């Protein structure tokens, strides 16, 4: 008697779970909704970066960042304001909508007094001493449609918010090597279509980083994350980004997104 009951319970549970999964949005649709979310044509903001190593040594950077869409092309620039040893450093990216077209990136180092072209295939490298990769910085609140294949694996909760769990894997080993990730699992708030938490696994399959997006508030009608915390499980290093003075669509000049502006400190 027990066996038929067990099979019955198993079958009911199995089909119930399957039907729930079947009701969940597909990964690509979630990604599309994330990327369709309004993030403003342009934004300016102050950013405080706190980097803490495994021994507790902390470094702090203050930056001012701008991002603006030129049609489908996204341009981002970050100017370092403090401390003294890094003040004047600036980073500019042109992110093109064509998946087969590499980004163009430039870095200005005040000690060199020259704007240097840097290779976009550095995108898996850590960004200027933080736990973010250049690609993480570039994507901000978006996800890459071209680099990953994704599925929805279930539901969860982060900081009290319901979210869908989306698992993404690079489309091939070359992309995985470039990005430095073999798998990304993201918890997406399905009421505002923002990522609340991301987990990344390195190319060996070990859990590498956990990123938590916090203090998400509406600014000028646009959902905006104000705190991002990254724990690097491999190194014990921790990065915390705190955004302030966020302003959308406030007449940001096109000239800020130029190499000349990098040299001038905007």
């Amino acid at each position, binding site marked *: 008697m027990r066996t038929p009951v067990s099979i019955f319970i198993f079958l009911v549970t199995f089909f119930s779970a399957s039907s729930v999964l079947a009701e969940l949005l597909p990964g690509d649709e979630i990604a599309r909704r994330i990327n369709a979310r309004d993030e403003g044509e342009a934004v300016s903001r102050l950013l405080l970066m706190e*980097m803490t*190593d495994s021994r507790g*040594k902390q*470094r*702090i950077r203050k930056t001012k960042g701008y991002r603006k869409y030129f049609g489908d092309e996204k341009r981002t620039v970050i100017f370092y304001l403090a*401390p*003294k*040893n*890094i*003040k004047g450093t600036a980073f500019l990216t042109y992110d093109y909508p064509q998946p087969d077209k*590499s980004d*163009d*990136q430039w870095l200005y180092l*005040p*000690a*060199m*007094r*020259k704007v*240097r*072209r*840097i*290779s*976009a*295939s*550095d995108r898996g*490298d*850590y960004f*200027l*001493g*933080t736990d973010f990769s250049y690609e993480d910085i570039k994507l901000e609140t978006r996800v890459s449609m071209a680099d990953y294949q994704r599925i929805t694996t279930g539901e969860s909760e982060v900081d009290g918010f319901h979210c869908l769990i989306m698992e993404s894997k690079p489309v091939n080993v070359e992309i995985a090597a470039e990005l430095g990730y073999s798998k990304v699992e993201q918890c997406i708030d399905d009421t505002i279509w923002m990522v609340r938490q991301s987990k990344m696994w390195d190319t060996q399959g070990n859990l590498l980083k956990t990123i938590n997006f916090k203090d998400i508030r509406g600014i000028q009608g646009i959902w905006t994350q104000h705190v991002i915390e990254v724990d690097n499980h491999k*190194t014990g*290093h921790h990065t915390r980004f705190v955004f302030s003075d966020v302003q959308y669509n406030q007449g940001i000049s096109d*000239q800020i997104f*130029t*190499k*000349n502006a990098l040299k*001038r400190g905007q």
Partner: protein
Amino acid sequence: MQNIINFLLLILWQSVSLAVEFETAITATGRWFINTDNGDSQSLRLNLIPELDVGFNNGWQFTSSLRLQAEVINGLQIDDINRANYSDYTKPALLNREIELELREFYIQGDISNTFVSLGKQQITWGKADGLKVLDIVNPQSFREFILDDFDNSRIPLWTVNIEFPVAEWNFQVLWIPDQTYHELPKQNATFAFSSPEVVPAGPPGIQVNLKQAERPNNIFLDSDFGIRASTFWQGWDITFNYLYQYNNMPVLRQQLAISDGKPAVTITPEYERTHVFGTTFSNAFADWVIRGEIGYFTDHFFIAKTPFLNQGVVKSPELHYVFGVDWNAPLDILVSMQLIQSWIFYGADKITRDRLDTSITALIRRNYLYDTLVAEILLIANINNGDGIIRPKIIYEWQDNVKTWIGADIFYGDRQGIFGQFNQNSRIAFGIEVSY
């Protein structure tokens, strides 16, 4: 020049009421070099750089910095440098034999409509090359330590009017430099005094050589340097076209034989000569690689003749000077950077002390560790013609945001006739510390 300074001071004074943000900083750097040949200290130097930036609510910004430099080792002391290269408005103040005070930056910058204006004492950098210069010649350089000092330290800021404006897809930069300051060269007894026959003439054996003071141009308007640069971004390429009408920063060393007190003597007269410079630079990124380069064509360059008294010991020729470089972002966050630098003399190559085609290469390998707090690198600069060069390993560690230390070495090799080999007894180990607030 005094009128320009007065004008700048007037602008500053009127702008004080608009000032909204004052920012100050100070950087102290200590460096100690030990000669590897004899174990003696080669240099013990302290730099103190206070800075003041003022931001105005109209978007303009004033930047200023001083540099107090103290050197206690004879041969590299402040007074071991020939200072005749400086204009009166740019010359550092010599406080005593060991200490000098220099106004490094003093400029105001801002936008007038679509035009960016920067007025005052500043550095202008052109070009894409690392370690050696082709088009990075707008500002002269101090050769107190040959090319070992960071270019940011050794580049001599000039009083400059810099105007930049966009036209369609191009950005133009126009320069007017009414500052007759040129390369700072060591005296003959200094540690890094030039001795290579490619750079300085060697007097005939047994004949007295008298070096006269350089005859420096001094008409603020007629002797100004002028430059223009057009830059654009086309099909993924960063491209510039450059033109500079300048006095070559290195003086021409003309020689004359005369009888003095019944004995023959050679008199060397340094003179500055004008040249037109036409140049271009380019760079692009392809996957893991960045390709970059710069080309400069100099209409009037002077080279030292093999025969001291032919055309006063100099040969004039156009020169084509260029650099091609590749940067490879290798696995494990390693940067590998290679450059080929060549200089081609058009006329009279058989009469001068260097080859018609002079070739150098550079190779840099750099790796960042510990979230960019530790940097290890090794740089090779080698001249192929003379078989000489320099090897520069260095490790930099950032203890805190405002404290970093480094240890390195500058190892010269090759024959003393060569540009690098002339210093083959000056190889050294370097220790440094920098603290900033």
